[in-house]
């Protein structure tokens, strides 16, 4: 996550200008801003509104509707843990407890990593599953999750070298 830039008005305007002529450009612009800065700064709202001829309230409405968009920076490692039915059938809820009890990490935002709840990653025959900073990990168990929370590289965890 080292390629994330601090908030910058000029860069943000350039990002917006590059996409504003697409049909229904709001989501592509918000995604691009978040990819650039890691979150969407409050100062971006009037810029997006101006570019798309929307009110600030409308942009705020879109920004707050979708689970993906963040309003504050969070440089911690991101672990998106699937908690939908297929992963429930293989015990993902015990992993949530494990993270809380042993690492103080909760889906409400506490702890050394950003643990997020997602509903389905399409890895339903190999659960429990997660995306770790975008990299898929299947067949999670308490040991693998601990290693990921402790910062082990995904490749090492997948190769079974986490211990």
């Amino acid at each position, binding site marked *: 996550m080292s390629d994330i830039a601090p908030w910058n008005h000029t860069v943000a305007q350039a990002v917006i200008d590059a996409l504003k002529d*697409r*049909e*229904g*450009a*709001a*989501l*592509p612009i*918000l*995604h691009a801003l978040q990819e650039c800065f890691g979150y969407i700064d409050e100062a971006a709202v009037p810029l997006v509104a101006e570019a*798309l001829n929307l009110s600030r309230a*409308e942009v705020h*409405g*879109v920004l707050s*509707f*979708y*689970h*993906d*968009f963040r309003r504050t920076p969070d440089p911690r490692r991101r672990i*998106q843990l*699937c908690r*939908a*039915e*297929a*992963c*429930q*059938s*293989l015990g993902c809820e015990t992993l949530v407890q494990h993270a809380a009890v042993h690492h103080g990490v909760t889906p409400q935002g506490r702890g050394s990593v950003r643990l997020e709840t*997602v*509903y*389905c*990653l*399409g*890895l*339903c*025959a*190999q*659960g429990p*599953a997660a*995306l770790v900073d*975008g*990299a*898929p*990990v*299947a*067949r999670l168990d308490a040991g693998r999750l601990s290693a990921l929370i402790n910062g082990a590289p995904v*490749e090492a965890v*997948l*190769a*079974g070298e986490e211990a």
Partner: protein
Amino acid sequence: MSIRVFIPRDASALAMGADAVAGQIKTEAEARGLAIEIIRTGSRGMAWLEPLVEVEGANGTRFGYGPVAPRDVKGLFDAFFLAGGVHALGVGPVEELPWFRAQQRLTFGRCGRIDPFSIHEYRAAGGLRGLDAALAMRPEAIVEAVTQSGLRGRGGAGFPAGIKWKTVLGAAASQKYIVCNADEGDSGTFADRMLMEGDPFTLIEGMTIAGLAVGATKGYVYIRSEYPHAFAAMERAIEVARSAGVLGPCVLGSPHAFDIEARLGAGAYICGEETALLESLEGKRGVVRAKPPLPALQGLFGKPTVVNNVLTFAAVPFILSEGAKAYADYGMGRSRGTLPVQLGGNVKRGGLIELAFGVTLRQIIAEFGGGTRSGRPIRAVQVGGPLGAYLPSHQLDVALDYEALAAIGAMLGHGGIVVFDDSVDMAKQAKFAFEFCAAESCGKCTPCRIGAVRGAEALESAIKGEKRAENLALVADLCTLMRDASLCAHGGLTPNPVESALRHFPEDFGARAALAAE
């Protein structure tokens, strides 16, 4: 002549370390001075074997080894796997595996076999023949072929695709759109993801044929953000298709224009509902629209729009190249063709199983799945995603068919099957159904927005044994209300998992606590 080695790049293989395995194989081959060519493919759909490494023999037969971990690679070379040598991980010729051979892969025929980004390999494997055929036909004839094939929407509603296309064809407008719903949010489903990562040109071809059929020149694929690999694969495949002249102002050199753009969702399950998806594509909150007007007449930006699921579009190239009858010959009753079944959850051998409609759930779970992964007895099976019913083990002889499932109060949905063993607490599952509905509700209609919250509260109280009868009566009442009065299927189908759990597993819902209190 170098030996060809195929290693999947599907997320299900990456999630088990496929990249490291590919790297290790390359390094080891170089160290031993062996000439190999590594080709990254999609997945065959045998999830328990991933990463499944395949080696091409002299006559083109592909020998499989899996699941391969990086530490296995040296041993594979020592066992001469490049010559099909014997090794503990060897599964023999992949296409001869009973699990694989028992399928009818009409839509997924190329997935896992070819390089997903080589248009040359795609054509060599029978790709673009459907588009060639469509370019020689009048729009009405294309729509007629799709109608005759009996193809029904694979997203869940099962609406006949040909009728939808005919409506859009008949609508006069300056601009029409083709929208592919790739917001595959149902737990237990991954066929859309697999196809986009493993054979994206089939989707592009299907959407292009739809464009020709209804007179649309622009298509969108709306892909959920939980599928970053599928999104990247579609973007890359669209680029390749453009430079190969499949997409663009002159589709395959014809006077017809068609182009596609991939769009990324932002983590809202409700955007899998077609009108919420259209709102999202327009750059708005993913809030459901009232129908009518139908999207076929007033869809994206108010223009006539075909909205179909990935699997619906992906079935079209076969129908055009092999004929409507060839497709309709598969299936049962009013469910024609094949269904890519997705078997997941607590199961030994899960994955993608494409079969003609009519196979029973028990056959899928026992014969293909091999029972539960935990080895414990099956207690419940959820079919059709988070809004689908939970079936007890004595109902598993039902055929996979839209009408047969509806007859027992269940639904096929997008074809996902999730298996639970006897450790499952069905009251928890029912409560989760309400909680999921509340978390993902768009908030537009009251039955869904409030009903789901109250439902979860009332269930929780009942489970604890507090005013059990009253609270269960309230849950029943809320279910009726949500089913009858919700604006879309999100609220309207949430009663399915709740009521089926209550009906088939009443013992989990606080009966014991209630008895103890008396």
